[in-house]
């Protein structure tokens, strides 16, 4: 009995890790990349002096943060078809996750931009740079350093949240585990196995975070 349980866990490791490699990880990476682009845009809108622009960004952030990710996912995948818009599982997941990251990371990026001293903007202007040039070459590199820890949090949360995509039929880590569990009736074992794989992925990400932090800290006094 125990023998066969170990066997089952070992045999299911391949599809579960496969689900991570072909589902969870690309889903998280792609959504995070798109999410960061959205977040930067929203953060800049939020910092705009034109109230309608910052207002739109405010509302967006409020909706994203004020509604469950699962509901956002269901609105896109199950809701949109009823008004004639059919989106496949993968694109639905990517859209929902990147919009979600966009909302959360926007506040992180905004705070990071505001944390850079005003004198840095002025130094940029006085050497002749435009606002955009100063933002890209002076402010964002410094904001990046500040935002790595909170953005790493966002990314790690995202990796785990991608398990929700199993509910809109995306074949990823958790859906693989679910299917094997349903088939074998070994729920406890399979779900713990899935949890362990998530944990390992997040451990790797955490160490990647500290490497990145060290790298970005090289120009700061210790």
């Amino acid at each position, binding site marked *: 009995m125990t023998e066969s349980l170990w066997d089952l866990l070992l045999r299911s490791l391949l599809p579960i890790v496969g689900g991570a490699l072909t589902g969870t990880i690309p889903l998280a990476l792609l959504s995070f990349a798109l999410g960061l682009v959205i977040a930067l845009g929203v953060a800049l809108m939020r910092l705009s002096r034109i109230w309608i622009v910052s207002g739109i960004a405010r509302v967006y952030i409020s909706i994203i943060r004020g509604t469950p990710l699962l509901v956002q996912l269901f609105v896109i995948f199950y809701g949109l078809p009823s008004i004639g818009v059919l989106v496949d599982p993968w694109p639905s997941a990517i859209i929902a996750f990147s919009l979600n990251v966009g909302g959360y990371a926007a506040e992180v990026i905004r705070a990071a931009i505001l944390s850079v001293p005003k004198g840095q903007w002025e130094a940029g202007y006085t050497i002749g*740079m435009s606002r955009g040039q100063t933002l890209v070459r002076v402010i964002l590199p410094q904001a990046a350093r500040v935002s790595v820890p909170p953005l790493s949090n966002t990314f790690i949360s995202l990796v785990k949240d991608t398990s929700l995509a199993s509910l809109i039929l995306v074949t990823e880590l958790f859906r693989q585990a679910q299917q094997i569990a349903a088939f074998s009736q070994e729920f406890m074992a399979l779900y713990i196995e899935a949890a362990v794989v998530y944990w390992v992925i997040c451990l790797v990400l955490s160490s990647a975070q500290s490497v990145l932090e060290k790298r970005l800290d090289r120009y700061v006094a210790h």
Partner: protein
Amino acid sequence: MSPTDPLAPEPADAIIAAPLLTARGIRKSFGDVEVLKSIDLTVPRGNVVALIGPSGSGKTTVLRSLNGLEVPEAGTVEFSGGDVVDYSRNPTKRQLASLRDRSAMVFQQFNLFPHRTVLENVIEGPVQVQKRPKAEAIADARALLERVGLGAKADAYPFELSGGQQQRVGIVRALALKPQLLLFDEPTSALDPELVGDVLDVIRELATEGWTMVLVTHELTFASHVADTIVFMDGGVVVESGPPSEVLQNPREARTKQFLHRLLDR
């Protein structure tokens, strides 16, 4: 001085110092407080103008109005041969940029880019803004750093330097732009006393080379040595201005005398 010398200022051809920069009627309020009440300032080419006065007198605000870091409610700033930038008519980005193209600023807090090395700090403007060839900008930057005694620090990050060294990099970053006008905003106020001398030496050298400068400073002795004109400000107005021998040695106005006495009494 050879024409390729990166420290070479604009040719000081005029014996009669023609104004390089003219500011008129600069007014600025922060909320209800009127910090500048119609300031006029003329900076002749090749001259050093020092703005002195008690804190809160508005001298830094005047300086920052000359390059649009501060946008006053009214007043004009004009470089000879350039547009008149009229602050009462919402100057365009291009007009503010034109002020910044001709000037460069040295800040009290240095404001070096912490994520770039000393050399990268210096070439940022010439390469990214002025689009000069990188090799040429680097050669110029190294020569300038050498001249202020920081040749060996080109690859250091700002945090690895002392305040005095950082400020000399700040000066070099400004010089590398080859501006017509150098603006100094209390360049030694954030420095430990023993580091002030090195920075003042560099500024003094620039003055002798004929750079046009506007300098906000508390270093009165230094100002009396390098400045052609001292402008004494108090309460948002220019109380008196003239050569150091007049304003500092024989002030006419009671407020100037009071200010100088207070400093001497300490």
